[in-house]
């Protein structure tokens, strides 16, 4: 067996996938660190009054009204009187233009440019923090969407302003408990145009008239929802905009002199009414500023901005209302709103332009310093350039103000220039998709999938050649070349592009080599040529299992299907498993053929055919199908709920026991969980014992005998302790808290020890040497039953493999010696458990791992884990039975190839149980409690809790990936049962060889193992590719940041974890293979002495 080659090939494939994912995610998911500092009134930002507290300076405005009209595009707000035939969305807001032209010193209308991603939540974050929120703001608490960064609402609350909010309930989740009064309305239903708006209108005017507020925020959603539902050019949009026109008019009527009105859109919309991307139609919203008291300088201001960036709202509002600018704001004050220098003494009050700019620049500089100390994503050279500019400008300013001179206009201009360049630097880092990187990632992933497919189809040919060396060498050399080139031309290295070049070159080289190998093979054996040549035809690809896999991939492109993913996957598993018996029946393999007297006897199928065996296999298959379907159906009741699923109730098993109030229910849940845990352990041990793997005294057997039961006892006790109500056993509180700490830790230790023992000594073979020589295996009196070794008579009968040794020896010694006499004089060897020597350690490994992962889940999930075990067993048996039925009829060609159907089922089951263990591909649904199992006091680092949460989230991916090689072993394990009807067991040694067949055909074993793993990787990789495509294609979709981007992240991380554990599983198999080889070697000289 070519262990190293297989492992390195798999590793290489995984690395190529990783590089593709890394590149795409790097271009698509913009990441930014959150600075969790807040500005305070005490911040010394003024140069003159060092002790001054600028919150106490009388602000320009006492109150403000913010009317946010979602998706108010600038085209909606403009008014063109010459337009005789306005479209439905044109000229419907005349109030803005009327006011702006009739009272130019009171009002202005500007285009208001948003930064991508132009989705409502990110935009609200943007114009309250003044920053450039990305999809992932690291440091954000994933469990809730509340904004932890410094923001305007927080600052207003700090200073004692009463903020009243009404409208889109996104605000309520972003600013929980921050409002003086809040009237949220449900925003989820896009088809509902009126609930939010009507709700606001009910309360808006009464609130304005009353004196119970300082800042009023009203967020209307009707226009946005109208766009999503009908598009902008629709009569409904005209109605909606006319309604908004009326609202603005009535608000303006009710304004008082000390109040500022801001009407704005958070983003625009495309011609189809969508938003989220970065086209100008989506980014350009409108902002309208108005105050009953004069707001702008009389004469036209010298530098009227063409477009107002959205970040600029925060510093402007903050300084106009007299609060500190939020810490992470990178915006720039809107200069026309501040009086020029020297005019502040008038009636207006507040800061002058230069003062405002100076405060702003100082705050931005402080933020930049803090941020660059935390993260390294802003290039160092631009940082130092900015720093230089700031120190120059600040010395200029200080000297000018210190001398009391009138500042030159250049000073204001250079302050502005500094602020603009900071914002541009930040935007370049945080708010720009990189289409080139995304495309490169997509290409690498597509090639990686193709490569996996080719590798799986041609595994038996490719494994003979040394296909890996050239691609790896090419990758290394190209990577180094690109790095050197970058260093030479740019002066620094961009790792992503070096990796991309390396991965692409190695993929292409591999594909070319595979093509050459294939053609040479085709040329080599002419007769097989047609069979091999057309393996990539459409007919070959459109088999039902691959079709199901394709459907699953296609379902990732629709938000509804992603939301209903758990049910969709269950549906597909059910369909594909029903396909197995139907397909067998179609081939006439399910039922024993009726005897046909007309048919000549010579045409009867292979002699191995026996009706009873066929009937037995078929009934096993049907029974297992029933078990599979049952567990599929039951697994549906363990699903959690996404917020998009309106009427869904999460499974009652998902809440931990300690939260259950009803004592009876609690006990019932506990007993159920305990029973499933016990059954899990029992079934594992029962299987091992049945195949005689519990007889020797090695490490694995010790694990199965001692550690496995101990581990489950630990887990059961841990559940009991953690479910005890804290107040019921006061006097035992110390003991309980100790147990809460000690039990899970003991379980972790046991788990580690068990896994280590399996790794160190994976053999479960018990050799019994007998001095009495047997003439033939079957003529022996059955060995006596020995309870201590745990062998049942049935196991002895079926699973002793007495002839193995002789067969091996014969094949080793070229079998020239005449056997009979020699055999008689030598002691025969019986090996218990040799038939399942590969699968037993792997199964035990997965079983132990399963209990360990169960430890990280809520107690109720034990039932789901039991279902997982049952379903896995059913799947394996169905696979084994269908293989046996195929081979019984002589239809099977030999070799150990695992067909696509079970592999696809296996991978779908992984996703199914991801959902059936209460997980969902959304961030709020991550089970953070897992991080505190065994560490109730919290952690100091981040690696340990992160890995615990990862293990919890991807538990089913881990189990299925590690157990993947079982698909290869199971038909061999079940082989004895299948052929017993034909020949009596033991009559011929060949019947009981089981997994030793693999040992006899190392070449086929290697190619089958490689094929199985690459097939599994192909299916997982295709899913990742599909979700990457979904994210790339649907960048503009309403749901991209809510559905597709989280799905992409979960799919990608699931893939990474699966890869790692698939490699671990394959490594364990090769470790066993090595141990078996050594065992035979040790046996051989021993016996020939």
């Amino acid at each position, binding site marked *: 067996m070519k262990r190293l080659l297989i492992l390195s090939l798999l590793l290489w494939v995984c690395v190529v996938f990783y590089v593709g994912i890394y590149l795409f995610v790097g271009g698509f998911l913009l990441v930014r660190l959150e600075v969790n500092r807040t500005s305070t009134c005490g911040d010394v930002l003024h140069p003159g009054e060092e002790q001054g507290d600028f919150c106490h300076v009388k602000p320009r405005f006492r109150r403000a009204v913010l009317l946010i009209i979602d998706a108010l595009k600038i085209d909606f707000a403009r008014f063109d009187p010459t337009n005789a035939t306005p479209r439905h969305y044109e000229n419907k807001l005349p109030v803005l233009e009327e006011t702006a032209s009739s009272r130019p010193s009171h009002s202005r209308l500007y285009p208001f440019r948003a930064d991508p991603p132009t989705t409502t939540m990110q935009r609200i974050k943007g114009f309250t923090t003044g920053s450039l929120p990305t999809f992932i703001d690291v440091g954000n608490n994933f469990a809730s969407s509340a904004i932890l960064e410094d923001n305007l609402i927080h600052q207003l609350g700090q200073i004692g302003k009463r903020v009243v909010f009404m409208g889109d309930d996104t605000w309520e989740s972003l600013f929980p408990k921050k409002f003086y009064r809040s009237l949220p309305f449900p925003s989820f239903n896009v*088809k509902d145009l009126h609930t939010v708006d009507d709700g606001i209108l009910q309360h808006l005017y009464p609130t304005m008239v009353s004196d119970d507020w300082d800042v009023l925020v009203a967020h209307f959603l009707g226009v946005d929802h109208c766009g999503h539902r009908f598009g902008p050019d629709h009569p409904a949009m005209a109605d909606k905009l006319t309604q908004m026109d009326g609202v603005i008019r009535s608000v303006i009527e009710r304004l008082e002199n000390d109040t500022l009105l801001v009407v704005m859109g958070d983003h625009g919309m495309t011609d189809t009414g969508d938003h989220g991307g970065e086209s100008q139609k989506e980014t350009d919203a409108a902002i309208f500023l108005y105050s009953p008291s004069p707001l702008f300088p009389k004469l036209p201001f010298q530098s009227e901005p063409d477009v107002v960036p959205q970040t600029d709202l925060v510093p402007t509002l903050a300084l106009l209302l007299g609060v500190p600018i939020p810490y992470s704001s990178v915006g720039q004050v809107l200069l026309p709103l501040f009086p020029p220098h020297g005019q502040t003494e008038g009636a207006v009050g507040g800061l002058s332009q230069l003062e405002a700019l100076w405060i702003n620049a100082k705050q931005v500089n402080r933020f930049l310093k803090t941020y660059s100390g935390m993260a390294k994503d802003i290039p160092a050279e631009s940082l130092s350039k900015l720093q230089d500019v700031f120190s120059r400008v600040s010395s200029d300013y200080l000297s000018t103000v210190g001398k009391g001179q009138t500042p030159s206009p250049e000073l204001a201009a250079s302050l502005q220039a500094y602020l603009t360049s900071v914002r541009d630097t930040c935007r370049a880092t945080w708010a720009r998709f990189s289409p080139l990187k995304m495309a490169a990632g997509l290409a690498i992933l597509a090639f990686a999938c193709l490569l996996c497919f080719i590798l799986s189809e041609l595994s038996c040919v490719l494994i003979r050649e040394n296909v890996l060396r050239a691609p790896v060498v090419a990758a290394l050399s190209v990577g180094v070349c690109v790095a050197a080139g970058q260093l030479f031309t740019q002066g620094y290295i961009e790792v992503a592009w070096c990796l991309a070049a390396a991965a692409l070159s190695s993929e292409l080289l591999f594909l070319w080599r595979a093509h050459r190998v294939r053609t040479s093979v085709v040329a080599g054996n002419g007769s097989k040529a047609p069979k091999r040549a057309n393996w990539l035809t459409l007919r070959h690809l459109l088999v039902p299992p691959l079709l199901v896999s394709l459907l699953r991939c296609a379902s990732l492109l*629709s*938000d*509804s*299907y992603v*939301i*209903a993913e758990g*049910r*969709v996957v*269950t*549906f597909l598993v*059910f*369909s594909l498993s029903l396909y197995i018996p*139907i397909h067998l*029946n*179609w*081939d*006439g393999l*399910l*039922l024993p053929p*009726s005897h046909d007297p*007309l048919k000549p006897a010579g045409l009867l199928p292979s002699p191995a055919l026996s009706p009873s065996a066929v009937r037995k296999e078929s009934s096993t298959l049907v029974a297992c199908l029933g078990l599979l*379907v049952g567990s*599929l*159906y039951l697994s*549906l009741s363990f699903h959690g709920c996404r917020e998009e699923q309106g009427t869904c109730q999460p499974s009652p098993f998902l809440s931990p026991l300690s939260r259950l109030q009803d004592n009876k229910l609690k006990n019932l849940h506990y007993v159920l969980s305990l029973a499933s845990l016990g059954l899990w352990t029992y079934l594992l041990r029962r299987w091992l014992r049945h195949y005689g793997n519990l007889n020797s005294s090695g490490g694995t057997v010790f694990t199965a005998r001692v550690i496995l039961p101990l581990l489950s006892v630990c887990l059961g006790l841990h559940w009991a302790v953690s479910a005890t109500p804290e107040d019921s056993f006061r006097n035992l509180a110390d003991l309980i808290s100790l147990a809460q700490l000690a039990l899970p830790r003991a379980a972790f230790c046991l788990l580690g020890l068990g896994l280590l023992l399996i790794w160190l000594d994976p053999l479960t073979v018990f050799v019994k040497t007998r001095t009495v020589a047997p003439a033939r295996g079957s003529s022996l009196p059955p060995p006596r039953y020995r309870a201590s070794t745990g062998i049942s008579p049935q196991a002895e009968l079926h699973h002793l493999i007495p002839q193995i040794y002789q067969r091996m020896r014969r094949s080793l010694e070229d079998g020239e010696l005449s056997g009979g006499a020699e055999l008689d004089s030598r002691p025969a060897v019986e090996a218990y458990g040799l038939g399942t020597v590969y699968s037993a350690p792997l199964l035990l490994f997965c079983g132990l791992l399963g209990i360990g992962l169960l430890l990280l889940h809520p107690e109720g999930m034990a039932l789901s884990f039991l279902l997982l075990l049952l379903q896995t067993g059913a799947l394996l048996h169905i696979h084994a039975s269908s293989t046996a039925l195929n081979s019984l009829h002589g239809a099977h060609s030999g070799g150990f190839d695992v067909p696509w159907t079970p592999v696809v089922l296996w991978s779908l089951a992984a996703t199914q149980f991801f959902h059936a263990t209460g997980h969902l591909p959304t961030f709020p649904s991550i089970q953070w409690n897992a991080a505190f199992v065994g560490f109730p006091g919290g952690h100091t680092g981040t690696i340990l809790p992160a890995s615990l949460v990862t293990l919890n989230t991807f538990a089913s991916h881990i189990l299925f990936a590690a157990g993947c090689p079982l698909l290869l072993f199971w038909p061999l394990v079940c082989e004895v049962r299948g052929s017993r009807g034909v020949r009596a067991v033991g009559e011929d040694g060949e019947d009981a060889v089981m997994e030793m067949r693999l040992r006899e055909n190392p070449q086929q074993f290697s190619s089958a193992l490689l094929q199985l793993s690459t097939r599994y990787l192909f299916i997982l990789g295709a899913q990742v590719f599909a979700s990457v495509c979904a994210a790339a294609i649907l960048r503009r979709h309403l749901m991209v940041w809510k559905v597709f981007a989280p799905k992409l992240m979960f799919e990608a991380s699931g893939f990474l974890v699966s890869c790692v554990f698939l490699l671990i599983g394959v490594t364990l198999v090769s470790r066993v293979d090595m141990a078996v080889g050594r065992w035979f070697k040790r046996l051989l000289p021993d016996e020939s002495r």
Partner: protein
Amino acid sequence: MWDHEIKAMASSHALIASSLFLATVVPAVLVQGFSVYGTHLLWLYSVSGTVSLVNISVFWLLGVSPPTKKHSLGYKLSRLFRSCIYFLLSCLFYHTVVVLYGAPLIESALETFSLAVLLTSLTTLRCLCVLGPNVQAWIRVFSRHGAMSVWDTSLQITVACTVVGAWVGAFPIPLDWDRPWQVWPVSCSLGSVIGFLTGLVAAPAWIHYHRKQLTYKCK
């Protein structure tokens, strides 16, 4: 011989298909407020009743059903009785399968059962007509070499089309389009009826184009 049988099949299929259309159109004229979505159950029953009746009469007139050995009234009655039992069992079977596929268990159980009745009258009833109440024969027919006459082949094609149609009909249900035909079980029953119609058209066509390859064993 071939042409004759194919012609008979085509005309009988045309008859069944037109009866399906009649079952949709006639109630729409006669019953107030009848529509495929609005009064879906009514449409379901009208379609399944009509299809059953037409199927039975067509196959009885054509004499396709397997020759019975005995002609006694008692034997015929027991066959009829067994057929009824099989019909019911098949309804229950389809109901179970549909529920396992994810249909709601308790609420809208009536709708689910109606779908099961429709599926039974589109598939099992044809099996009953062609093969008689003999499950072994049904299972055998659905294998590559299991068909023993053109009617068996047409049975294979129509049943497969109907079941696949119902399966495909489940796909639009999770989509958030809020269309009236997405309501359970409208899309599935529509899918199965459309699949059945496709099968009715496809079966004679397929047999016609593959008549050279088709060889049937004698019974």
